[in-house]
């Protein structure tokens, strides 16, 4: 194995594109090193992107924030602006692993690891976050939702890597929330999860809603029926019930030792309802 530490994005793209065999991007390493350790993969080249200028930074951009691909959960949690604007994104990301893992883990890494249960991803999808991808043809932007292709697979092409993720601007009276179910209190992987992002009007009526489920399908599921159930409501009981039903209906989970199909399906609805309530309250909505 070779270890490379490019000083620019272009250099990284060249390294990633030219090396034959197994090439991996090293951001926080919290998935990569585990996979190397277990023998799941034996990379020929590991490209440490943390020395590319700007990649460790969070910058305000167009009313939102551009989060560098190497920004750790701990660093994001320390950023008051992001946490205020996108609390659901921040809480989803910060649920990953322990304090130690948070010291290194990145959102871009969680996205590219492409686990169906990645805790950072549903809220990013609900937020309509956009990934900036550096590649042989230069930089391009891609909705986060379009990055995972299935468990462990992404749509990134040879030579490409994510350099940042843009969390867009929000109007007043907008917020988001993320919830997951795990059998224990900490340090576990979602059995089912849900992120809800809402925009309210001045009367507290929901005008925009996005609902994303995690761990109930090969990739994050955007529940448009659930969003429709919320829009026009004030997150009242009927709307929430309709949301829960829509969320459960959108599930296509697996049966495994951590949760049955039935359990995941039911819990996804419950989480959607509760996440919507939290997001609604955060957005300043009052029932």
């Amino acid at each position, binding site marked *: *194995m070779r*270890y490379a*530490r490019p000083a620019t994005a272009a250099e990284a793209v060249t390294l990633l594109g030219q090396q034959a065999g197994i090439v991996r991007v090293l951001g926080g*390493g919290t998935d990569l*090193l585990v996979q190397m350790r277990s023998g799941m993969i034996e990379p020929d080249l590991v490209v440490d992107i943390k020395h590319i200028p700007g990649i460790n930074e969070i910058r305000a951009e167009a009313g939102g924030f551009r989060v560098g691909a190497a920004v750790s959960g*701990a*660093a994001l949690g320390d950023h008051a602006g992001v946490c205020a604007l996108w609390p659901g994104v921040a809480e989803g990301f910060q649920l990953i692993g322990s304090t130690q893992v948070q*010291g*290194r883990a990145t959102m871009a890494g969680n996205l590219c690891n492409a686990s169906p249960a990645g805790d950072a991803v549903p809220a990013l999808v609900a937020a309509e976050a956009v990934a900036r991808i550096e590649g042989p043809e230069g930089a391009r932007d891609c909705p986060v939702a379009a990055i995972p292709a299935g468990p462990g697979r992404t749509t990134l092409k040879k030579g490409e890597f994510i350099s940042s993720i843009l969390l867009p601007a929000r109007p007043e009276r907008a917020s988001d929330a993320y919830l997951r179910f795990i059998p224990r209190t*900490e340090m576990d992987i979602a059995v089912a999860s849900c992120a809800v992002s809402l925009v309210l009007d001045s009367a507290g009526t929901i005008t925009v809603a996005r609902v994303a489920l995690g761990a109930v399908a090969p990739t994050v599921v955007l529940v448009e029926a659930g969003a429709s159930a919320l829009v026009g409501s004030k997150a009242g009981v009927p709307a929430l019930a309709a949301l829960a039903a829509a969320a459960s209906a959108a599930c296509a989970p697996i049966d495994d030792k951590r949760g049955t199909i039935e359990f995941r399906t039911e819990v996804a609805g419950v989480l959607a309802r509760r996440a919507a309530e939290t997001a609604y309250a955060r957005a300043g909505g009052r029932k």
Partner: protein
Amino acid sequence: MKSLQVSTTINGDAAEFLCAPDETLLDVLRNRLGLTGAKEGCGTGDCGACSVMLNGRLVCSCLVLGAEAEGAEIATIEGLAEGDVLHPLQQAFIDHAALQCGVCTPGILVAAKALLDRDPDPSDEALRYWLAGNLCRCTGYDKIIAAVQAAAAEMRGARDVA
């Protein structure tokens, strides 16, 4: 596999080492630098026994490549005491019997110090969440929480006096 030369700072002292590209910082500390205070309990970031500070962030050194230490500032359990004076956390762990087999203890101390440096007066809940990634099989955690809180109180007191 060609070895890499890495220059870094460990517990305030400059350190240089050679390592294989796929070698972890934990292996470097333990096998090349003789700093065996950080332990490998799992090698996958689950147990926290290998906790060190990397550029001011608490990390599992088993999930860091040695090569990444280039130019970094690393703090390990070996640097916690000042000379022969134990850090208040270390003393509190002894006084409150917050360790038994002791293999998780270095990691917990490093992690606890990282918290107290950020928050000198954490709630028990905040402390338990912070230490959730440090597994202890012997003590049942309560004594660990009590010891960290006692050290925190002592450190606050010392700060007030100063």
